[in-house]
């Protein structure tokens, strides 16, 4: 018994905080759902949250850790959604209505694999393009994917009307979603906290130096893009099962940006922060949608934007620095899990973090330029 206590003390709880949080969600909501006291709207919200955490985490790998700005993340999701939906449709006759999990898993594998393949294809130009230029390529990729599926023939992917997929009508669906999130955390966290993740962050910090140190930049950039795209594809498959209807117009530029917002607010290169912000953004968005109905619906975007502005200012304003440092989520966690902190310890538990301020400046500066040039094609820089 004493040994157990010693081992428990040695465990670095910070490493497991993400798993614990998601496991708690599963542990709390599964009995509620089984008991029938969880209304449908809450289940749908939980499904959406699980999906957005998947998307934000996978994008965070490319934007936060690899340091490449990708504006076409919804494109990978779109591929996963359509292919997963199609696989499920083809299998429907074999697994007729018994709500078996087998078609879901098969669809998941196919969707994630094909999205990963496209991640590889997008990763190739990423080896040569930097910053703004890569952002434009990924933006174009997202739009191309959307257009291709919109113009597909009715027999293949349903064309403009969209693809009707079998709904996995199951009270367990959100639980499956959160198990997917656990898998995603497992893969991405273990990737980041290994020598390979260190190589990826080295490329982000200084590609020239990374090459000079013998790091295979080609390999690690492709690994980053493939893993990221595969999980976005998995999120897409999950979407098609949760919605029983896939329409390409959902996966537009705005959705890609919304995922990017989650990553930026959560802090680049901070997985726990990304999960929190994915939950918060999804929650706020959904609540606003239900609260502001009828004539007030126009206010939704304004309120949402205002909330984002306030969050960004709160995170960056120098005047609030003291307040932020005092009431910091990280400090709270440290107090809970590590009462005595010694400075001489090795940083084995430390995250590969970019100070959020710097990272945000970088992303926002690139992002705004791209947004400007896409929004106002006539105002193109002619100098």
């Amino acid at each position, binding site marked *: 018994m004493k040994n157990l206590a010693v081992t428990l003390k040695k465990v670095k709880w910070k490493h497991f905080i993400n798993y614990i949080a998601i496991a708690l969600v599963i542990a709390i909501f599964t009995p509620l759902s089984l008991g029938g006291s969880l209304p449908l709207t809450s289940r749908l919200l939980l499904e959406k949250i699980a999906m957005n955490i998947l998307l934000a985490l996978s994008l965070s790998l490319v934007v936060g850790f690899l340091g490449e700005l990708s504006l076409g993340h919804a494109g990978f999701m779109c591929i996963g959604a359509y292919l997963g939906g199609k696989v499920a449709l083809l299998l429907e006759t074999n697994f007729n209505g018994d709500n078996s999990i087998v078609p879901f898993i098969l669809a998941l594998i196919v969707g994630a694999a094909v999205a990963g393949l496209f991640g590889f294809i997008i990763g190739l130009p990423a080896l040569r393009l930097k910053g703004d230029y890569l952002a434009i390529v990924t933006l174009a990729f997202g739009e191309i994917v959307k257009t291709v599926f919109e113009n597909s023939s009715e027999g293949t992917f349903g064309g403009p009307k969209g693809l009707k997929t079998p709904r996995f009508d199951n009270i367990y669906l959100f639980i499956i979603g959160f198990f997917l999130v656990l898998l995603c955390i497992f893969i991405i966290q*273990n*990737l980041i906290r*290994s*020598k390979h993740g260190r190589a990826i*962050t080295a490329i982000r910090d200084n590609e020239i*130096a990374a090459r000079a140190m013998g790091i295979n930049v080609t390999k690690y950039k492709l690994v980053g893009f493939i893993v990221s795209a595969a999980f976005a594809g998995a999120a897409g498959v999950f979407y098609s099962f949760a919605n029983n209807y896939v329409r390409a117009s959902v996966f537009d530029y705005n959705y890609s940006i919304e995922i990017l917002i989650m990553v930026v607010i959560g802090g680049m290169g901070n997985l726990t922060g990304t999960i929190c912000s994915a939950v918060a953004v999804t929650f706020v968005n959904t609540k606003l949608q239900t609260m502001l109905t009828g004539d007030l619906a126009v206010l939704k975007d304004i309120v949402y934007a205002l909330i984002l502005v306030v969050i960004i200012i709160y995170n960056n304003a120098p005047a609030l620095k003291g307040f932020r440092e005092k009431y910091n989520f990280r400090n709270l966690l440290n107090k809970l899990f590590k009462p005595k902190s010694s400075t001489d310890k090795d940083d084995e538990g430390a995250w590969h973090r*970019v100070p959020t301020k710097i990272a945000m400046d970088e992303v926002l500066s690139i992002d705004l330029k791209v947004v400007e040039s896409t929004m106002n094609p006539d105002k193109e820089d002619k100098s």
Partner: protein
Amino acid sequence: MQEYVLETKGLGISFGGLKAAQDINLKIKKNEIYGLIGPNGAGKTTIFNMLTGVYKPTTGTFFLNGEELKGLSQEKINHKGIARTFQNIRLFNNMTVVRNVMVGLHDRPEFKCSLIESLLRLPRHFKVEHAMRERAKELLDIFGLLEDRNNLAYNLPYGKQRKLEIARAIATHPKLLLLDEPAAGMNPQETAELMDTIRFVRDKFDMTILLIEHDMSLVTGICDNVTVLNFGMTLAEGRVTDTLNNPEVIKAYLGD
């Protein structure tokens, strides 16, 4: 040919009409500390860039221990045994000091650990991580950076950043180490310390060192031979004291 660690034969590069370096013939013996000096814009860093694969030479070629390395990628050249530091420091700023060195250790065969092993957290992953950290700490200790190991590289003072860059380059276990102005921005005492460190690592890791430097006290203090460049061409080469007293060299530095 085997007696030289690095041998360049007629190495040259031109950017458009500009001949940044031409007909460079360096012959560097094992365990030698060799200086590459010359006024600004003489093409010293260009030569480093060719030797590390950043630029592809337009003429000539070069050999490391008799093996031709021309045309290989930067990663490959590093794996063959040439490591470098940069004139304008290029550290991984948002990583801690110890992690910077661990990136240098990344491709060493003794720390091999596949992606799958890392993802599934097999025992090998933990073993390799631990061994890498210990080796990185040993290297940091040599440069007096052990205390700073958990600081972000970005927050180190300038002199320590230079030292960290050297430590990181040595981590890749090179046969030939290229140092681009290692003493830039250091005071005389730090420079003297650096000279001792360079000699020490040369002996400890059995390396050959080629360095670019403007600080003549360092050049005369540790270099065995030097090559003086001017306008991309070799002006003089040989023993340090003889070469620095060469009237051509004095003219290039001070004018007529």
